[in-house]
């Protein structure tokens, strides 16, 4: 019985939102309500997730497990930014500076490390995967995009070269379109399976 109720809840919410694509004006108030409740639930789920993160670090700290010192640092950072944000609001200049001068340098530096990791991984590609159609295509695509992005060729006054470059730039789009269509078809099928409760990601009830 409970399974049926859960399936009905999923179906009603899903079909109402889908109907909203066709009858937007008529269903607008209901859609706003459903989506607002969804946003609220996701927000609370996010807070619960953060709660688990804090609990995990607290447990590591109090059980004196390996890495407890790092957990202490993470917890201090969490309490500091939470308390400051709650007391002064996220629009306070200090809070903005804190985010800009801690998050941005760390994120940019992590991205910088990615450059080295990607270069190393690409060099290992042929050694680990061998000469397959995929790896040949990958190398061709990477080298082609690098050359074209370097603006090495001067297109001005040479319409044939300009046409050629435009054509070469479009080649990666062909596979990309196929991948996008494949992902959309996959999403559509998974969505329909969830909607009709063939798959139940929320559990068995």
């Amino acid at each position, binding site marked *: 019985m409970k399974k049926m109720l859960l*399936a009905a*809840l999923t179906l009603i919410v*899903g079909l109402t*939102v889908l109907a909203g694509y066709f009858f937007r004006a008529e269903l607008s108030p209901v859609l706003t309500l459903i989506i607002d*409740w969804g946003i*609220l*639930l996701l*927000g609370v*789920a996010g*807070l619960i997730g*953060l709660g688990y*993160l*804090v609990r995990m670090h607290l447990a590591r700290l109090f059980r004196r497990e390996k890495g407890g010192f*790092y957990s202490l*640092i993470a917890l*201090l*950072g*969490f309490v500091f*930014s*939470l308390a400051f*944000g*709650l007391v002064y609001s*996220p629009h306070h200049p200090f809070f903005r500076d804190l*985010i800009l001068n801690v*998050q941005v*340098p*760390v994120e*940019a*530096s992590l*991205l*910088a490390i990615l*450059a080295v990791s*990607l*270069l190393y991984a690409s060099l290992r590609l042929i050694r680990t995967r061998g000469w397959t159609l*995929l*790896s040949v*295509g990958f190398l061709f*695509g990477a080298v*082609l995009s690098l050359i074209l992005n370097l603006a090495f060729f001067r297109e001005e006054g040479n319409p044939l070269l300009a046409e050629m470059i*435009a*054509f070469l730039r479009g*080649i990666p789009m*062909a*596979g*990309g*379109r*196929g*991948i996008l*269509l*494949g992902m*959309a078809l996959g*999403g559509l099928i998974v*969505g*329909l399976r969830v*909607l009709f409760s063939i798959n*139940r*990601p*929320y*559990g068995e*009830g």
Partner: protein
Amino acid sequence: MTLSTLAWGVIGLVLTVMVLSYLIGDNVFFRIAAHVFVGLTAGYFAVIILYQIVWPYLISPLINGTWGERLWMIAPLVLILLLVISQFPKLIKLGTIPLAYLAGLTAALVIGGAVFGTLIPQSRAVVEAFDPNRLSPSANPSWRVIADAGVMLIGTVATLSYFHFGRKSQPADDLEKTERPKVFEVLSKVGQLFIGVTLGGIFTGIFSSAVLALIDRLIFMGGMISQLFGGG
């Protein structure tokens, strides 16, 4: 340069050096920087969720709303309550109700996004490349317009064929039981090539961004060090 700007710059410099130290191997400085980042970001997300979701969507309507609006908040309050108390192991099953609600909402948004955001526009783009108005002799199409349309069609069909894993419903022999039909085998080989080229292009884009970030960090470090020790 004010004292506050200098202090923030030094913090940024120290964190940058700590994170980049990972290039010589995993070490204590990288881990400290990573945990500072995780802690501050987690706190920041909590503040943003509270200020931009919980306050305007829940607390504000309860405090400032009309009686009708307050009544409408009963349903999300119940769902939130169920979600929260389902974190206790004995009451875990109560969490299926808010999760079923979220599953229905997400599934519908995914279906809508897939159909109206990707399937229709992308299929249309492939078809429109063969628009008679563009390809007719009177339109004087360049070789590129024709080649673009052909490559786009072959690339799209071949890439989709690569992800086709179907088998014949009534196989004639054991080979047909395990292998795809010949036409899909051939098309999937072409598809592999196109997928490789696309991934190569994406790789270059990400690599370029990462190199730019590396250059940005090196310039930032150089600038800060010259300001600190060279007098600006």
